[in-house]
């Protein structure tokens, strides 16, 4: 009966209740959706780190990470491979030889980490091959010429292998893309000019076009100006096993694009055989073994097993390599909970105010309830339930709206390309696909109930302070 009365009391003053419910709904929706968007960028970042860059566990010579000398090779590699393969949870293993060197092209040079890889194995274990930019090659492809290199877009830009140039062909492309002739004419002064970055090109055409034209045609202009000559070459130079400088020309077989600028700018992949030959490394020698696990959740379980099995080597999982990311991943739920607590604390003031008004305008009724035998505990419970119902109706509505919004945007994505430069510098995608775990909604439900309970304390205390004789008299 108390529960039923409390629920009905919520709807006594519909306008007032709906106002506070709407405030809670909007507050919960806004914060849940914001958290889902933030969460998605973290989930995507972890996904990229594991599937494109690091995999789950890496095994190196103890000195290799601090001193990446070519001579710091893994001793007894066959035994290490056997140990990795026989460890429960490990599904795949591959080895890399890794050298630090310089990548040069006619227009520039950059320091890089060159990884000699088993192409087929890496294709199975990483998704980097899927990050190939269309029109730039085919990830080593069927042409297994040894002197092929797979490089990142950022490096390609630095070496000016990719550039932006408005050629006569570009203007034809602009026409085909439906850009009006008068807009194309405005771009004529840029014809033949080379821009090393998208930003520089954008700045140049922004000076010539109106704001509306930039917004409407900017993407199509950048696409038309994007220029890459397939089969471009770079020179990779480094020190071989004997400390002598060596190097060779590598044909670029493909350019990949990830969300991590640093990785793109420094990671060059070449077939293991060619690098081995140039570096003077024997067959079967490796600097790094990479293990993939059945499930990311096994990472914390398998790592100590491998550390014990390979005591002379450095065994690190992705969380130990990307400490900042791991910390975010491990504490993300607590961070979300703190964020929600702050939001709900702000919303609770609205609930307290509403409940206080409800109590003060029902003085006489509360006096009657006390007179006929409704004890303090029951009155407190009734007020508390009203407050919980208010918070929960708003909370559930907010969760439902955010659930729908998350489901839709998880499908369509949120394009933050405008801010991509900043985000990708830190390895985060500019396309967000909001997502949040079901467990978060459970935590949120508990927090909303707690908010309701805490919001009821002051109004309920006010109700309990009423003297039934005075309350009944006080009209």
């Amino acid at each position, binding site marked *: 009966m108390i529960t039923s009365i409390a629920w009905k009391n919520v709807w006594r003053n519909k306008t007032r209740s709906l106002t506070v419910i709407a405030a809670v709904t909007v507050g919960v929706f806004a914060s849940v959706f914001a958290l889902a968007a933030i969460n998605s960028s973290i989930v995507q970042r972890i996904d990229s780190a594991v599937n494109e860059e690091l995999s789950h566990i890496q095994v190196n010579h103890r000195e290799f990470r601090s001193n990446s000398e070519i001579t710091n090779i893994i001793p007894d590699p066959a035994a290490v491979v056997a140990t990795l393969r026989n460890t429960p949870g490990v599904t795949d293993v591959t080895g890399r030889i890794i050298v630090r060197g310089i990548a040069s092209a006619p227009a520039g040079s950059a320091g890089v980490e060159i990884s000699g890889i088993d192409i087929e194995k890496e294709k199975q274990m990483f998704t980097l091959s899927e990050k190939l930019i269309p029109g730039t090659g085919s990830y080593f492809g069927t042409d297994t010429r040894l002197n092929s290199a797979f490089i990142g877009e950022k490096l390609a830009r630095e070496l000016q292998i990719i550039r932006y140039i408005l050629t006569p062909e570009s203007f034809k492309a602009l026409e085909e893309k439906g850009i009006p002739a008068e807009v194309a004419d405005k771009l004529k002064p840029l014809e033949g000019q080379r821009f090393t970055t998208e930003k520089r090109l954008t700045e140049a055409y922004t000076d010539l076009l109106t704001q509306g034209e930039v917004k409407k045609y900017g993407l199509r202009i950048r696409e038309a100006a994007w220029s890459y000559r397939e089969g471009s070459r770079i020179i990779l130079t480094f020190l071989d096993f004997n400390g002598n400088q060596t190097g060779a020309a590598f044909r670029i077989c493909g350019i990949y694009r990830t969300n991590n600028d640093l990785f793109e700018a420094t990671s060059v992949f070449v077939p293991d055989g060619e690098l081995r030959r140039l570096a003077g490394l024997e067959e079967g020698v490796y600097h790094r073994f990479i293990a993939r696990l059945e499930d990311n959740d096994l990472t914390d379980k398998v790592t100590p097993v491998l550390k014990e099995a390979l005591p002379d080597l450095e065994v690190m999982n992705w969380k130990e390599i990307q400490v900042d990311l791991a910390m975010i991943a491990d504490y993300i739920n607590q961070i979300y909970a703190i964020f929600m607590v702050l939001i709900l604390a702000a919303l609770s003031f609205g609930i307290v105010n509403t409940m206080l008004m409800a109590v003060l305008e029902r003085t006489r009724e509360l006096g009657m309830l006390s007179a006929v*035998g409704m004890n303090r505990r029951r009155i407190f419970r009734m007020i508390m339930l009203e407050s919980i119902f208010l918070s929960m109706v708003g909370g559930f509505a907010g969760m439902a709206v955010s659930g729908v919004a998350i489901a839709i945007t998880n499908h369509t994505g949120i394009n933050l390309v405008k801010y991509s430069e900043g985000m990708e510098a830190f390895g985060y995608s500019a396309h967000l696909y909001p997502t949040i775990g079901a467990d978060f909604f459970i935590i949120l439900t508990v927090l909303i109930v707690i908010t309701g309970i805490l919001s009821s304390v002051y109004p309920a205390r006010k109700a309990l302070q009423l003297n039934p004789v005075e309350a009944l008299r006080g009209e």
Partner: protein
Amino acid sequence: MKVVEINEVQKTYHDTEVEVRAVNGVTLSFEKGDFAVIVGPSGSGKTTLLNLIGGLDQPTAGEIIVAGHRLSELKPSELIDFRMEHVGFVFQSYNLIPVLTAAENVGFIMSLQKWPKEKRMARTDELMEAVGLSDRHKSRPSQLSGGQQQRVAVARALAPRPEFILADEPTANLDSKSAETLLDIMEKLNREEEMTFIFSTHDVRVMKRARRVITLEDGKVVSDVRTNHSA
């Protein structure tokens, strides 16, 4: 059988340094089945006395014993339980719970007392019929007239079978016809259920029906007359 015993009860209020003795040495008792009214001019202490008998207020001095309970010995929380178990209240302004239907209002105190649902519903039906509202079970208080609301309030007070009913000016807000109907119902319930009714009133219609009229003046009983009205 004595239902209420009041011995030398005083109630003093201290209002802005002035001492007001609302009840001043009242000694009374009520028998089971009484149909008594307390009358007197405004400020004579009628409502205060009713509040003291009902355990809504504590006397400054003296003793009130209801159904064997010395009210002055009860803690505030025990007084609330005492009221729920032993006293039925009918207020001048009906004081029904607006979000509940008429039947739910009648069943309210029984549900606080955790009566089984079937028993509670049977008692509700019985009382709704007794007060002539068997067709208004699902009506909200706002859909009922003043007289009908007061009849629901009487049914609510009677429902858990208390020791007695305290009715503070129950007809004050009612027209003549509604007041007579209400009094007919109360008399009938007094007769059939042997329920003790103690009224505080100015209303001559109530006084005419009473079998005992207690007159208060300045907080003191100035007369206590039993009439020969038959219930």
